[in-house]
């Protein structure tokens, strides 16, 4: 029965997407409002049932539905792996996803009917793809889910397809995601060639116990996929552009779920990473560097969604840092917490954007504390969670990662260096988050604010935000043992059957760095007040304008990639066009056609229309026939 439940969990959003796709032009709006979020909530109910079963029985289920391909050594079943890790991810996807899709019912209300249906069709398609990704029991289905998530992202980023910027952003996201797909596909090939398995259970049983060339290669290829999907350096440039999509899309895909798929991949593949030391450590390094770099860029952003996008990039860097060092449960706890407060922040920003008539520039906000009190309170709580203020969930989840990094022995001090980077990032996080809050909400209303009296959001948009706020506040209770070694570790215990127990114990002095992070992060938050609200201090950008420019240009990453890759491909394509396409592929059929026409033209000259010419040819032909007969007679 649970087997069918798992399948139903997977297929319900797909059914929703299919129905909406087929009826988009005629379906009434109320039906869309029911189906769109409805299938996601039904999936959430299924997930809860699976959760209850897992809590009671603590067995992982590998459900095989049928064998799809059986060809020589290649044996591919259709199987779903329902264990604690996948249930954990499904809770995030369907739960937070459900809240966001419900929010979108109100946010997208101004769209036309067909557009409205199209939006929820794409959202349900995304939910289905994400569920396929996390429930897949073998590499092929993982790749399918992975690719379809990229597709859904493309469709949703480019939702306003008449806008050139949206289409360009969607294309950029898709292309970079495909680079990741290639890494994942090559890893699957390598795994099959080396270990002759396709399912997770099969592969993990056949892995070598010691580090070697191939397992490192596989680790790096998987890392490419994870880095592309999670927008870590160096494949990060698509995430800020992805803010072209509607705000619910940003909340769901680019904060809570799709970008965390990379973290899931590393967690799921932990048997590989436990053995492949170098690729594992590279993951941690990339995560840490991304966290720092993204935080620095976030300081200079003026679009509120872009601040949140770089913040997401930074926080996922934290998750990579955690799973990259072996603290898998810590990374996943931060994934859960981040889903809560980042979705909250995005939706709160969505409320503001909605009431500001689609204005996203923070410099034109201000004074919202007075006019949109509820949203402001929720946004404040989300911001404080992002900074990591006790007792919100962000504190616990971030400190778990930093504490585990600080406490990890061996590896020659590398974890401690990672900790230091994370510590620095936390201070910067406090600063840019504070800047965002003070600039957008607390200060006096900007003189060029687009709406004089902004109104609070309608209930359908407010309720999900409030729910997430509550979760942010109480979520910390799941794993109190964070940073200060006291209390329980519920998330870690829950995921232990899949991810294992943390191999090292926290150091006795771990509370010192924790306290430092908390303190300095909070101070940075407050410091921003002095710069952006009452302007007592000059903005730092006045002192070092070159730094400001560097950060605004995002360290010139886009320009670099454009010169390296885009120009090269354009040049190659143009050259190919001139050399191959025009003369040969275009020219050859055209030339053949022209030659035929010329030949026909020449032949047509024989049709002169003159009767006497025809008769002459007649008689000439008779003469020739006579000649031929003569020849035959002469030779025989």
């Amino acid at each position, binding site marked *: 029965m649970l087997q069918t439940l798992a399948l139903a969990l997977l297929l319900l959003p797909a059914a929703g997407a299919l129905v909406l796709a087929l009826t988009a032009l005629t379906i009434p709006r109320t039906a869309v409002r029911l189906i769109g979020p409805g299938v996601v909530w039904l999936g959430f109910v299924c997930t809860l049932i699976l959760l209850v079963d897992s809590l009671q029985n603590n067995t992982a289920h590998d459900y095989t539905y049928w064998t799809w391909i059986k060809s020589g050594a290649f044996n591919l079943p259709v199987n779903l792996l329902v264990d604690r890790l996948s249930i954990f991810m499904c809770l995030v996807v369907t739960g937070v996803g459900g809240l966001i899709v419900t929010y979108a019912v109100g946010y997208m209300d101004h769209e036309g009917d067909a557009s409205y249906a199209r939006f929820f069709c794409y959202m349900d398609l995304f939910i289905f793809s994400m569920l396929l990704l996390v429930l897949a029991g073998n590499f092929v289905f993982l790749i399918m889910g992975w690719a379809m998530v990229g597709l859904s992202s493309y469709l949703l980023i480019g939702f306003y397809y008449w806008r050139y910027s949206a289409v360009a952003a969607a294309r950029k996201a898709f292309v970079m995601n495909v680079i990741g797909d290639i890494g994942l596909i090559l890893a699957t090939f390598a795994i099959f060639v080396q270990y002759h398995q396709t399912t997770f259970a099969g592969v993990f049983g056949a892995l070598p116990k010691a580090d070697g060339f191939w397992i490192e290669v596989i680790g790096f290829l998987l890392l490419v996929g994870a880095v592309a999907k999670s927008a870590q350096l160096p494949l990060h440039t698509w995430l800020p552009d992805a803010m072209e999509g509607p705000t619910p899309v940003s909340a769901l895909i680019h904060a809570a779920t799709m970008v965390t798929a990379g973290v899931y991949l590393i967690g799921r593949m932990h048997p590989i990473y436990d053995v492949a030391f170098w690729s594992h450590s590279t993951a941690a390094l990339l995560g840490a560097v991304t966290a720092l770099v993204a935080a620095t860029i976030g300081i200079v952003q003026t679009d509120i969604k872009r601040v949140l996008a770089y913040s997401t990039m930074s926080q996922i860097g934290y998750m990579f840092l955690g799973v990259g060092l072996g603290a898998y449960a810590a990374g996943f706890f931060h994934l859960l917490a981040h889903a809560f407060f980042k979705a909250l922040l995005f939706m709160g920003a969505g409320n503001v954007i909605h009431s500001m008539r689609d204005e996203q520039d923070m410099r034109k906000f201000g004074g919202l504390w007075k006019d949109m009190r509820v949203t402001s309170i929720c946004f404040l709580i989300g911001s404080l969670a992002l900074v990591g203020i006790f007792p919100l969930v962000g504190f616990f989840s971030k400190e778990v990662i930093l504490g585990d990094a600080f406490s990890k022995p061996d590896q020659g001090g590398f974890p401690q260096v990672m900790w230091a980077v994370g510590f620095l990032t936390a201070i910067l996080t406090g600063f840019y988050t504070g800047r965002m809050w003070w600039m957008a909400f607390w200060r006096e209303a900007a003189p060029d604010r687009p709406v004089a009296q902004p109104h609070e959001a309608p209930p359908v948009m407010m309720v999900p935000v409030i729910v997430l706020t509550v979760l942010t506040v109480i979520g910390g209770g799941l794993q109190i043992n964070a940073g200060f070694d006291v209390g329980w570790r519920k998330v870690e215990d829950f995921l232990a059957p899949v991810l294992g127990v943390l191999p090292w114990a926290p150091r006795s002095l771990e509370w010192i760095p924790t306290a430092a992070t908390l303190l300095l992060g909070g101070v940075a938050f407050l410091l921003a007040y002095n710069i952006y609200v009452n302007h007592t201090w000059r903005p730092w950008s006045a002192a070092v304008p070159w730094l400001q420019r560097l950060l605004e240009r995002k360290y010139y990453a886009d320009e670099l990639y454009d010169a390296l890759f885009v120009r090269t491909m354009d040049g190659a394509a143009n050259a190919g066009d001139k050399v191959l396409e025009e003369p040969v592929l275009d020219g050859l059929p055209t030339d053949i056609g022209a030659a035929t026409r010329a030949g026909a033209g020449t032949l047509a000259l024989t049709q002169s229309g003159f009767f*006497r*010419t025809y008769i*002459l040819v007649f008689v000439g032909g008779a*003469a020739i026939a*006579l000649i031929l007969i003569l020849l035959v007679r002469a030779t025989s």
Partner: protein
Amino acid sequence: MIVPQIVFWVMAVIAVLGGLGVIASRQPVRSVLSLVAVMLALSVIFLLLSAQFVFAVQVIVYAGAVMVLFLFVVALLGPMGEGTSHHLRFHWGLSIVVVAVLGAFMYAQLQGIGFRAPDKLDTTFFGTVEQIGTGLFTTYLYPFELTSILLLVAAVGAIYLSRGGRTASEVRRQEEAHAEEDNVA
């Protein structure tokens, strides 16, 4: 003894002169009349060759009916002289060459062909009406019937072809009327 030779030669000369007249006359009436002369000459030669019935048919049907039809048509169509041609300048030369080649090879074909000995037949009754009638209605009945159908088809075709159609002046008048309509509209 010499009479057949003299008759033949006279008729042959008439025939060749008639042939030249056919192809060389400027006016079509003269061509048709030359052809009549050729036919009559040939019919006499047929008579010389023991083809009495064919001689009669040639005179009555061919020269007497078909040629009269030609004359009627020439009379209907009015005087037609051939002007100088603007097209096909090489045609004359080419035609002579082709016909010469044709003739040469036809002649070449005939070399080396033997002939078989004549059948045993009573020449007194050869080519009589009685003999041809017997042949037509017994051994060769099938071709005879087919030929009659062919004549029927030709007759029907001729009737159909001569039925409709407008004369040149009527066509011109209709075209002018259409042009006026287009101008007015």
